[in-house]
C-alpha cells in the first residue's frame, strides 16, 4: 500500500491525485494527503508517475507497514520503479528493454 508522500520532495503538482485509479489521495492547498489508504490496490502507478520521486508504495497489499523514509531515500528506493521502466532521462533506453519474447514458450 501507499505509505509515504515525502514532504521534502513533493512539489504539490497533484499528478498522483489524478492518476491513482482508486482515488486514494485528496488534494489540499499544498501537499496531497493519503486520504483512503485502505482503497490502495498496490499497483505502484502513482509512484511511477510522480516526477519528484516523492512517493513510496510498500509491497504489502493487505496491511499498512511502518517505513523509514530516510533509509528509503538513502538506498535510492524512491523512484526505483521509474528508473527500472525507463521513465527517467538517464534510463530512456530501458523502455524498449522488454525481452519477453525470449521467455515465452518455456
Amino acid at each position, binding site marked *: 500500500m501507499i505509505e509515504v508522500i515525502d514532504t521534502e520532495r513533493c512539489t504539490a503538482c497533484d499528478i498522483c491525485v489524478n*492518476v*491513482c485509479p482508486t482515488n486514494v489521495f485528496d488534494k489540499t492547498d499544498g501537499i496531497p494527503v493519503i486520504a483512503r489508504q485502505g482503497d490502495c490496490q*498496490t499497483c505502484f502507478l502513482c509512484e511511477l508517475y510522480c516526477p519528484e520521486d516523492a512517493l513510496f508504495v510498500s509491497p504489502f497489499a493487505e496491511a499498512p507497514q511502518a517505513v523509514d523514509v530516510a533509509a528509503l531515500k538513502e538506498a535510492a528506493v524512491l523512484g526505483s520503479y521509474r528508473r527500472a521502466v525507463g521513465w527517467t532521462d538517464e534510463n530512456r533506453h530501458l523502455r524498449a528493454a*522488454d525481452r*519477453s*519474447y525470449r521467455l515465452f514458450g*518455456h
Partner: protein
Amino acid sequence: MTNSSGGAEKLSSSAGSIVFDADVLVLGGGPAGTWAAISAARHGARVVLADKGFCGTSGATAAAGTSVWYVDPAPERREAAMASREKLGGYLQDRRWMARVLDRTYVQSNQLADWGYPYPADDDGKPQRNSLQGPEYMRLMRKRTKQAGVTILDHSPALELLVDGSGVVAGAAGLRRQKGDRWVVNAKAVVIATGGCAFLSKTLGSNVLTGDGYLLAAEAGAEFTSMEFSNAYAISPAFGSVTKTLFYSWASFTDQRGSVIPGASSKGGRSVIARALRQGPVYAQLDQADAETQRHMRASQPNFFLPFDRTGIDPFAQRFPITLRLEGTVRGTGGLRIVDDSCATTVPGLYAAGDAATRELICGGFTGGGSHNAAWAMSSGYWAGEGAAEFARQLGTTIGRQAFRRGTVGLHDRSGPPLHGGALARSVQDEVFPYELNYFREAGRLGDSLRRLDGLWSEASRADAPDDQELLRGREAAAMLATARWMYRSALARQESRGMHRRDDYPEPDDRYLHLVTTGGLDDVWTSTRPLASAHYSEAAE
C-alpha cells in the same frame, strides 16, 4: 424484449450534474475502451469516454502489462496458433473469430509501432511485438484518444444506463467523484468496456474491476455467456499484489518443511497448489532460471520484482510464501454475449469490448490471460467502436428523444434500508474466494452458496445508498454479487469438467455439454444453452 421502459423514472438533469451530448459513449478507458473510442472517432462519431479511475493508469493492463496474441500472418503459423489452444479451451472456440482477431491484432499492433510504441528488436533486428508494457502502452493510448478528439471524463464511474422508450440505449449516468457531482451523457450508442470482475481481490491493477458494466448492461436486459469459466486464480507472493504467473514456470514449490510438493506447477499443476494451500503455507523459489533467463526476466517485467526487492527477498535464491488470488472474469473468459461481427450485445445500441465481453469466441473455456485477452481487447475495441459509430449514424437525429434510467440496486429514492457496500463486498468474497467453492466445484456446495448469494441479492435489491461515496461502493458490491450468481448458476448448468471449469462431481469432459451456457437476469437468474458459435453461424449462412 425484456427492457421495456415501464416503471422507469424520466430523465431530468438537475443541478449538481453535468450533461453531455454524444454519438458514442464509451464506458471504461483500458485498452478496449481507448481502442473503441479512437475507432468510433475515426468513423466520424462525437465520442465521450468515461473511466472510473484515470484513463491511462486504470485497469488490468495499465498496471500489469500483457503478452499479446500477435502472430505472423504466415498460414502455418496461424494454423498452429489456433490449434494449440483448442484442446485447452475444450473445443468451444470459433475458428472464424480466431482468424479475425489474429488479423486485427496484427494490424493494431503494427499501428502502435507507427505511433511510436517502443517495441524491442531481437538480435537479428526483427521487431518483437508480442508483449506490451502496461504503463507505456496505456500512456500512449490516452494520448492517442485525446488526439482523436475524444472527451475523456476521468474519475467518473458510470452508475447506470439510459434507454429510450423502445429500449434502445440512450446514454449513461454516473458520478464525478473528485468533483462531487454527477454526469449524464446522452448518446446514440454505448460501448461497455469496463473490464471484468476480480472481486476486489487486490490482483494487480484490478480493484477497479468489479463487474459494474455487467450490472448496468443486465439492467438494460443484456445477456451473458460462458460465465462458468470465471475461476481464474493467479500466483502471487502471499503478502503482495503482483499476480504474474508466467515466471513461476521456473519455480519449485515446497511446503512448510521444505519438501517439494509433488505435481505442483504454475501450468497444469495449479490445482495441486490450491489443494496444498488448504493444508498450510506454500513456498516458491524461481530456482530453475539460469543467469541469462534471470536477466531477461528483470528487463521484461520490472514490476514483478518490486515485492521482492522491497522486502529484501532474492526470489531466485530464497523461498517465499505464495498465494492464489482470484482473478474472476479478468482472466476467465465469460462476459456479455456478442451477437454479431460488430460486437453488438442483445440490447440495441449497446456494444461490448475487452474483458466486459465474452472471450469464448477465441478462448473457449480456458483462460484468456497470457495473450488472447490483450488481442481481444484491441480487436473487439476496434470493432465495437466502429459498430457503435455506425449505429449512431443510422439512428440519425435524436432530438426530443426521452431517456429513462435503468439503474436498480442503490438507485431508488433513498427510502430503503441502507446499502453497505463494504460489508456486502466481503460477503460476496466469502462465497467466491474459497478454493473449495470456486476452484473445485460441486453441486451441493454451489447450491448452498447460491442460496446465500440469492439471499444477499434480495436484501440488496431493496436497499439504498445513504450518500454518493457509499453509492459507488454499493453499486460495485451489487455488481460483484450479480456476477457471482451468473457464475455459479452457469457452473451448475455445466455438469462436466471442461476448460478451466472443474467439477469434483463430474471430473471428465462430457460431449453432451459441447455447447455454450447463456445466463442473465437480476432478481431471477436464468440459464439456457446455445449451440457452438461455429454451428450457429454456419446455420445463419445457409
